[in-house]
């Protein structure tokens, strides 16, 4: 939605706002201004700016969201190990306190910018924008934004990402999509993390989780992954590479095509 082209004036409300319309004057004679602007207008503006930064540099930006402790950092560590020879990655870490997660990422030789939000329960576009100034986007292929562990607030703030990925660990309830519809409706991919624990838990049904996601009219794929034993990781990595190719198609010829006599290089996934 925007407040410049009028796309947020719908057939349902346009009549009310016309001069002489029901909402154009007030009983007290005060001036009534129809605004129809998103409440997070400033955030959305900065998010659009971030998105343009990413697009211009052909960088895939992935916003990772989950409850605290669902395994976002472990997933990133395993992802970095699998892809670091082929792709250049960086991580923006959001936590209320500590640099612990950023330190874990840095140990894998990947740049990490830690945002400590203090008491804020989510990242917003302004925080990500500041973090972007500390990264050399021109040298990167993927930026992972590890949001604050929280299934509520992060869903309301656009950061400028291309994709939302939500982790639901199998130690949580399989009805989480029904309990947190805003976040799961906004997810482009759902990862059922810690899937190596499924046999010992017994009460988490991946099919039930899929069913609840479908009830939100969300066609997003759902993969079972374990960063610990690597099972299912190839589906997630394939999805990432697919998102990258989509981004390249959307942005046109950002990466120069170099013709070589030899066979085309391709990524070999574990």
């Amino acid at each position, binding site marked *: 939605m925007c407040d410049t082209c009028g796309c947020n004036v719908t057939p349902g409300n346009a009549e009310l706002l016309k001069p002489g319309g029901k909402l154009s004057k*007030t009983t007290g004679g005060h*001036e009534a*201004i129809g605004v129809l602007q998103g409440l997070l*207008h400033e955030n959305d503006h900065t998010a659009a700016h971030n998105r343009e930064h990413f697009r211009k540099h052909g960088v895939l930006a992935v916003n990772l969201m989950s409850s605290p402790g669902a395994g976002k950092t472990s997933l990133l560590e395993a992802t970095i190990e699998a892809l670091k020879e082929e792709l250049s990655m960086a991580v923006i870490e959001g936590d209320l306190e500590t640099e612990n997660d950023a330190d874990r990422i840095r140990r894998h030789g990947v740049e990490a910018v830690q945002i400590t939000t203090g008491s804020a329960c989510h990242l917003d576009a302004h925080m990500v924008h500041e973090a972007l100034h500390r990264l050399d986007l021109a040298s990167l292929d993927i930026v992972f934004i590890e949001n604050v562990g929280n299934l509520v607030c992060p869903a309301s703030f656009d950061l400028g990402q291309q994709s939302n990925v939500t982790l639901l660990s199998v130690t949580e309830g399989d009805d989480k999509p029904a309990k947190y519809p805003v976040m799961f*409706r906004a997810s482009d991919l759902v990862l059922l993390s810690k899937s190596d624990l499924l046999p010992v838990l017994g009460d988490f049904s991946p099919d039930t989780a899929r069913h609840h996601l479908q*009830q*939100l*009219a969300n066609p997003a794929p759902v993969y079972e992954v374990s960063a610990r034993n690597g099972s299912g990781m190839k589906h997630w990595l394939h999805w990432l590479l697919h998102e990258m190719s989509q981004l390249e198609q959307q942005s046109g010829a950002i990466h120069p095509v170099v013709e070589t006599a030899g066979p085309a290089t391709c990524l070999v996934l574990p």
Partner: protein
Amino acid sequence: MHELAICQALIEQIETIVHRHEASEAKRIELRIGPLSGVEPQLVEQAFPVASAGTVAADAVLVIDSLPVNVHCSRCGSTSSVLPNRLVCANCGDWHTTLLSGDELQLFRVELVAGTPDDKSTGTAPERASGRTVN
């Protein structure tokens, strides 16, 4: 939890509007917050006095409207009113639906008092800072 941040963004928008229209203050603020916006109207109402203290919206009445969660079914073509966590077609049960309303997070309308902004528009930094910590 993030409703205070939402209110602070709202106050910034109101201040811009008041100055743009050379008004003195906002008297009534109407929002539209849908059940699928991720924002709880009741918490916005609680956070509003904290965020608006010392600003041009300090005396404004806050009115929050919520639109029903409506979906359009791409299979049977019908429109139905549904629950926020069950967005399937109420008519045929298919899940291939598009949301028509229910995710709004909008500043809909503001009533302003004519006149030039007085000291209300400049609420001092310490006042506002202390207001934020009350939460």
